[in-house]
């Protein structure tokens, strides 16, 4: 397959994030936020056509809805998914979400509740939302657009909303639903494939060194045995992203100044 010589970091990350759902069948794929949502769409239109997706409200759709103004596009509704059913489905484990935590620690524990002291926080965010239940029930991946030591923190996250592989919190073993998969950032793709679910770098985005990723991470990272370079999006993927999934180029707003994907 041909590769476009020019693509943006957002496009690189969409293609990388879509890989989270490769090989998955009739499971609910949820991408929280613009980039994960585009990644779900790309996975559905390419290698995982059987995934289920919602319209971000209460309906399931049979093809990804283009983001932004729809200009006459009518969503292809195929079923209903009110919140009551969402809980039933997710507690059964048949969902793989990609979420956007504000903090991640070396165990994969995640925070979207507050920053700072719990009683009198420096910054109140959303609240724990569904993170505790999601992480105890079904596979989760993450997209973190700004990879630095404030997002990938030393020690534990300020509030453990999403659980991770922290043995101190699970002396009797991890819940069977706990399954952390992939982390996509502006620097690299990581997973939990190290010893004892340690976070390892699977691929570095073009032009990024392991040292740079490590410097911007508050805990020691492992290198995957076959650590390589994050593959450039293919021509087919770029066409789908640009013409079908995101025709108004909303992805240009994901990263500051919309940098190129290849930073060599």
């Amino acid at each position, binding site marked *: 397959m041909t590769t476009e010589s020019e693509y943006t970091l957002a496009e690189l990350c969409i293609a990388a994030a879509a890989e989270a759902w490769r090989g998955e069948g009739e499971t609910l794929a949820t991408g929280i936020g613009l980039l994960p949502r585009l990644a779900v769409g790309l996975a559905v239109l390419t290698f995982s056509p059987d995934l289920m997706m919602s319209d971000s409200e209460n309906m399931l759709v049979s093809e990804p809805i283009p983001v932004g103004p729809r200009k006459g596009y009518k969503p292809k509704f195929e079923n209903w998914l009110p919140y009551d059913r969402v809980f039933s489905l997710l507690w059964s484990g048949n969902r793989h979400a990609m979420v956007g935590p504000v903090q991640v620690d070396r165990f994969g524990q995640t925070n979207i509740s507050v920053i700072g002291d719990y009683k*009198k926080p420096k910054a109140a965010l959303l*609240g*724990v939302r569904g993170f*505790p*239940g999601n992480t*105890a029930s079904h596979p989760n991946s993450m997209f973190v657009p700004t990879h630095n030591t404030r997002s990938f923190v030393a020690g534990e996250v300020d509030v*453990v*909303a999403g659980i991770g592989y922290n043995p101190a919190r699970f002396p009797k073993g991890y819940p069977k639903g706990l399954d952390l998969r992939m982390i996509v950032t502006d620097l690299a793709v990581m997973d939990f494939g190290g010893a004892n679910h340690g976070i390892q770098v699977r691929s570095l985005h073009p032009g990024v060194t392991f040292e740079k990723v490590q410097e911007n991470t508050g805990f020691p990272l492992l290198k995957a045995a076959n650590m390589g370079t994050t593959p450039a999006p293919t021509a087919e993927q770029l066409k789908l992203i640009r013409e079908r999934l995101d025709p108004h180029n909303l992805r240009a707003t994901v990263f500051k100044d919309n940098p190129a994907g290849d930073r060599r």
Partner: protein
Amino acid sequence: MLNKRLDIDSVIGRLSDGMTIGIGGWATRRKPMALVRALVRSSLKDLTVVSYGGPEVGMLAASGKLKKLVFGFVSLDHFPLDPYFRAARQAAALEVMELDEGMVYWGLRTAAMGMPFLPTRVGIGSDVLKNNPDIKLVTSPYADGEEFVAMPPLKLDAALIHVHAADQRGNCIVKSPDPFFDEIMSRAAKQVFVSAEKIVSTEELNIPENTRFTPFERSLVTGIVEAPFGAHPTGSSPDYGIDMGHLKEYAGGGTPEAWAAYRQKYVDLKDHAAYIAAVGGKEHISALPAPIY
């Protein structure tokens, strides 16, 4: 013939200081805002609110009504953070029982069933347990021996919900594409006060056509208030969408001065009709489109 019609002030008159009140809907959808504004204007204090939080949380926090919030999130959706909730939370001005949003549902179900707890995996190993030490664990009595969260009941003194139509006996119709957790919240409550877009005859509820849109049986309902556009500025799909412009004005605040100005303009008004006029009239609300995600 049962007649549960009340006016807004009579609903407030049936509530008292220190009560635990559930507020139906979800974030910016189908919140009983006409009743919430009446709470803001009232002399009630020290309330505990249980909610899938939207702008009502910020309004009640800004007006000093909240002693405690039981929640999984507070969100204005397109404007993700409510400035008044943030300000109150960051000033430690209210107590919080912060739960996974599924635990809120589970706790309401526990209360509705009159159980001391229901087991769940939700919350296990998270700081929800650390920050709520009253929530205990329970071990499965079966061979698996798994440890679960023993979710205690979230008992409500009252629930406030908004519906599309009701009759005076308390039969209701909710036509929204997502009923959310209004049913279970109502079952968890000692009293349920409903605001309805319209109060009609039982026949006009057209139950044969609307069977799947009935949230619960009438015996749950204590009182019904007719409040057309009573969910504004939140949406009440399919009748009207979320008022993004209004929420933007609200979310642009966050200071005591901004709240005072908002309150004067939109809350401290003569009646619900005055509110509808202040926000642009029923033509404006009727024309609000569904949001696009």
